[in-house]
Structure formats: structure tokens, C-alpha cells
């Protein structure tokens, strides 16, 4: 038996990898946390809310001592249709009881890695992994450092959507446009007081806004606004395949750059009042896996396990994005599988056991329940006809110009008849929506 450098090498110090390293170190395994950035968080981008119960269960200092931005007490879904917007807001003081926060990864990831190091994890920054190999009784993580090969019993691939671990080992299949969404985002300095006035928030409260319906009828394109302490982030998300062909701004007169859509979105009369700010502080771009349960790639091979975005564990529910907590949970399950392997002295079943536990966890339970949702969200009627029907119905209710057109339900029916959607479509979509939510 070869003596290895570490029991486990975790590749990538995002939330998923750091959670794994924390848990492993806590159980006295020798663990290295390899990160290609100079400092944790520098390569990391999110446009999401941290549903933080998984962190609260792991780290006693969370949430009190963690660098968090705002406690989310309001979610808002906004359907855009021309100059109009129909929104469903949900604000609930009961949400204050849940540890759900907006966060900036530059601060949060650094804090989280420090906690893992406190537990005994060895943090190796400025190190890019180039390959991962397995032999009969160990695995090797090949890095771009001089003499940088790290031998270990097992590898946790937490290296994000473009996972080197997954590609080098052949665990992950080749990803294509239909599997991926692009997101671009601006962080804007708005000022604390202005944020609280504009979004109607108390001092530590935060809001998350999700928009669809612009450009009209363009499927899979969405936008978000999140409130931070003094900044807001405003971003756009769109499937690569849709962005490739939508509109006529690209070469050969097809396609639209996502940053152009974001600019146009921010100039809409219904949006501008929320996003006007002093200055743009940062611009970011990232890919997100846009897979359903049935199209998820493989996640393990013997001594190697993929977690978080590397395993495609992201779900666009239409009304919120989940991914941060899925990543953390999957990292913890990989750690637990390693702890079990260490106790049994049998590492060959490390990956398979992790995968079984992940299947039984709320992460894949959630993705299984929503397995038809990605298909449902690709439906163009969700982005054109239905926001249109909602807008026309409400216009009928509130605009004095439509007095005399009859009862509200009759106006709704007329709006529906004027739209491109048929009764059968509505019934089908309603059924699909019901099944996938």
C-alpha cells in the first residue's frame, strides 16, 4: 500500500468543496483544498440566494459571524409584457426565521475557507489542476505547480461548471449549448439608504426579484435583481442555444449578445427605477448547468466524486434559482462517504456510495420532483402569451378606458381569445405546470 500525501484532495474552494473539506477535517482526515485563485472567491460568481440551513447545521458560527449581505424576506416574480409588468410579491416575516441570505462570494468564500482551515484542512491556492488519474490503490491529482502531483485515497471534484476533474476522468459527458445557460451580471453601487427606500426594506432585510417576458416570447431568458448591503446585482440568464439564434444582432443576422439584453432590460420603464445607481462596481459572466434530472451527467468513478455545479446540481425553478445549497449538501455527502471509506479501509466504493446517498438526499429528490420543469420553462407561451393575457386582464380591471367591456372574467376570456394560445394549450400547460411545480 502506497502512503499517500492526503486522504482526500478536494479540487475547488467554492461552497461545495469547502463544505467537504470542513467536514473531512472535522473528522480528522487529512484533506487538501486546491484552488486556482490567489484567494478564495476570486474566480467565483453567483446570482442566487443562499438557502443557508445546510451551512447552519455544519458551522456553529453561521449565520452570526459570516459575512452575509441581507436576510431575504421578500421574493418577487415579475412578468413583463411591453410597457406593463404583472408581479407576484411574497413578503413574509416568517422568512426571518429561515437562514436565507444574499451574499457576495468574494467575502463569503474567504470566510468559509478560513473556517475549514481552522478545522485542519490544508488550503493550496494558486494551483490549477490539469489531470486526475486513478490506479489500483490510490488517485493522483496533477497540478500546474512544480512537483505538484498530489497522491490521495480519493478526489472530490468541486471545480465548478467547467470541471477539469469531470472532463479529465471522462466522468462528465461533453456539454453542448442545450445543456448550458449563460449569465451576465452587474454589481451596482446604490447606497444603503436608497436600497432600503427603493425596495421597502428594513436595515438588514433583503429582496430577490425575478423577471421573465423580455424580449416578448423569448423562452428561457430571465433576469434578476438581488439586494446587497450597499450594492445591488442585476443580471440576465439565457440558454446558450436560445441566445445563439434569438434576434438578429449576431454575425449572419442571428443571435443576440446577453449583455445587450441586460442593457435593454435595465432601460425598461418598469425596471429603471430599481436599478439606477451611482456606478457599476463589477461585471461578471458565468455558465450555469441547465439540466433536468433525466439529463444529469454521471457523478462518480470509483475514487472520484463530482459535487455542486461540476455535477450539474443546479435548478432553475422559474421563481428562484437553487444551487448554492445543493452544492454544499453534495459536498457534505462526498465527505461522509470518504469518512465511511476511511473507517472501513475500503476506498473503492467511495464514489458509488456518495452517489447512492446523493440519490436519497433532498437535492436529487428536489430535482426528481421538478424533472419536467425545464421543459415547461422552455415553453414560449410562458414568455409571451400568458404575461399578455395577465396584463390585458388587469388592464381591463384598472384602466378607466375599458369601462363597459363587461365583467372581469369576460375580459379575461377576451384577452385569452385575442392571444395566440388555444384552450388546449392552456389546459396542457396548466397540467404540466401543476406536475412540475
Amino acid at each position, binding site marked *: 500500500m502506497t502512503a499517500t500525501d492526503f486522504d482526500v484532495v478536494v479540487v475547488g474552494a467554492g461552497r461545495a468543496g469547502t463544505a467537504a473539506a470542513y467536514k473531512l477535517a472535522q473528522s480528522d482526515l487529512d484533506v487538501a483544498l486546491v484552488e486556482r485563485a490567489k484567494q478564495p472567491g476570486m474566480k467565483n460568481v453567483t446570482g442566487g440566494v443562499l438557502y443557508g440551513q445546510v451551512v447552519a447545521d455544519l458551522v456553529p458560527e453561521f449565520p452570526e459571524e459570516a459575512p452575509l449581505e441581507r436576510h431575504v424576506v421578500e421574493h418577487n416574480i415579475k412578468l413583463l409584457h411591453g410597457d406593463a409588468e404583472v408581479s407576484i410579491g411574497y413578503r413574509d416575516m416568517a422568512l426571518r426565521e429561515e437562514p436565507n441570505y444574499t451574499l457576495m462570494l*468574494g467575502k463569503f468564500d474567504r470566510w468559509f475557507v478560513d473556517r475549514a482551515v481552522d478545522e485542519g484542512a490544508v488550503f493550496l491556492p494558486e494551483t*490549477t489542476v490539469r489531470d486526475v488519474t486513478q490506479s489500483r490503490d490510490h488517485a493522483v491529482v496533477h497540478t500546474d505547480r512544480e512537483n505538484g502531483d498530489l497522491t490521495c485515497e480519493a478526489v472530490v471534484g468541486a471545480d465548478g461548471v467547467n470541471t477539469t476533474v469531470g472532463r479529465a476522468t471522462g466522468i462528465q459527458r461533453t456539454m453542448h*449549448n442545450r445543456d448550458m445557460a449563460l449569465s451576465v451580471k452587474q454589481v451596482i453601487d446604490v447606497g444603503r439608504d436608497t436600497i432600503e427606500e427603493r425596495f421597502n426594506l428594513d436595515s438588514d432585510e433583503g429582496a430577490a426579484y425575478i423577471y421573465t417576458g423580455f424580449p416578448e416570447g423569448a423562452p428561457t431568458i430571465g433576469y434578476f435583481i438581488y439586494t446587497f448591503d450597499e450594492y445591488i446585482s442585476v443580471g440576465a440568464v439565457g440558454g446558450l442555444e436560445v441566445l445563439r439564434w434569438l434576434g438578429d444582432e449576431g454575425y449572419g443576422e442571428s443571435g443576440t*449578445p446577453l449583455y445587450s439584453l441586460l442593457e435593454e432590460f435595465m432601460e425598461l420603464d418598469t425596471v429603471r427605477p430599481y436599478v439606477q445607481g451611482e456606478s457599476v462596481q463589477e461585471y461578471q459572466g458565468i455558465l450555469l448547468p441547465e439540466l433536468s434530472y433525466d439529463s444529469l451527467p454521471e457523478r462518480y468513478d470509483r475514487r472520484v466524486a463530482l459535487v455542486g455545479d461540476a455535477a450539474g446540481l443546479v435548478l432553475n425553478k422559474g421563481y428562484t434559482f437553487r444551487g448554492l445549497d445543493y452544492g454544499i449538501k453534495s459536498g457534505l455527502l462526498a465527505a461522509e462517504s470518504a469518512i465511511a471509506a476511511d473507517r472501513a479501509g475500503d476506498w473503492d466504493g467511495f464514489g458509488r456510495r456518495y452517489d447512492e446517498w446523493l440519490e436519497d438526499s433532498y437535492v436529487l429528490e428536489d430535482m426528481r420532483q421538478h424533472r419536467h420543469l425545464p421543459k415547461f420553462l422552455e415553453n414560449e407561451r410562458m414568455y409571451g402569451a400568458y404575461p399578455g393575457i395577465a396584463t390585458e386582464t388587469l388592464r381591463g380591471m384598472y384602466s378607466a378606458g375599458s369601462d363597459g367591456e363587461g365583467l372581469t372574467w369576460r375580459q379575461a376570456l377576451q384577452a385569452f381569445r385575442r392571444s395566440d394560445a388555444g384552450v388546449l394549450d392552456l389546459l396542457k400547460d396548466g397540467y404540466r405546470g401543476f406536475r412540475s411545480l
Partner: protein
Amino acid sequence: MSVQDSLETVNWDVSEEAHITVDNDHCVTCEDKPCLHLCPAECFDYQEDQKGGIYFAYEPCVECGACMVFCANDPEKGAVSWSKSEGGKGVEFDFG
């Protein structure tokens, strides 16, 4: 605000070695050139005098990986050779 202005807010510690390269031979037969609008950092620029019309600069890359998916992984394209930037180099976000 143009994307070029947006990119002014981003910091890089630029590596001497390109982590992404483009083989322009493949650009000659590429008809729709999605790189020109799908790269969020405008690393790809249309220039008449370049082979296949594509000029590529790795320096302003924000390391999203989109070009791996829409070009490198597309069997009909494949001009892009993609890898992660060298340890400690490349884009550096303050906020994320």
C-alpha cells in the same frame, strides 16, 4: 453602458501564456460565428484581414467557459482549445 465599459470594472493578473487558443482554420468554414455574440467579454472580434474573420484575445476573458461549449464542443466548429488559466493568474473578481 457598453460591455467594454463594464469590462473596465474587472481586474486581471494576465498570464503570459494563453489558456484559450483559436485555430483560425476552423473559422473559415464556420458560417454563423456565434463567438462574436456569445462571448460575454468580447474576446472574439470580427476583423476582415484575419483568417476566417476572427481575431481572438485571451486577456479580457472572464473565464465563463461558454466558448468551450459553443465552439470547442461543437463537432462542426472546434476552433477553440480551452483550458483553465494557470494558478494565480487570470480574472480576479472582488464581489462574485
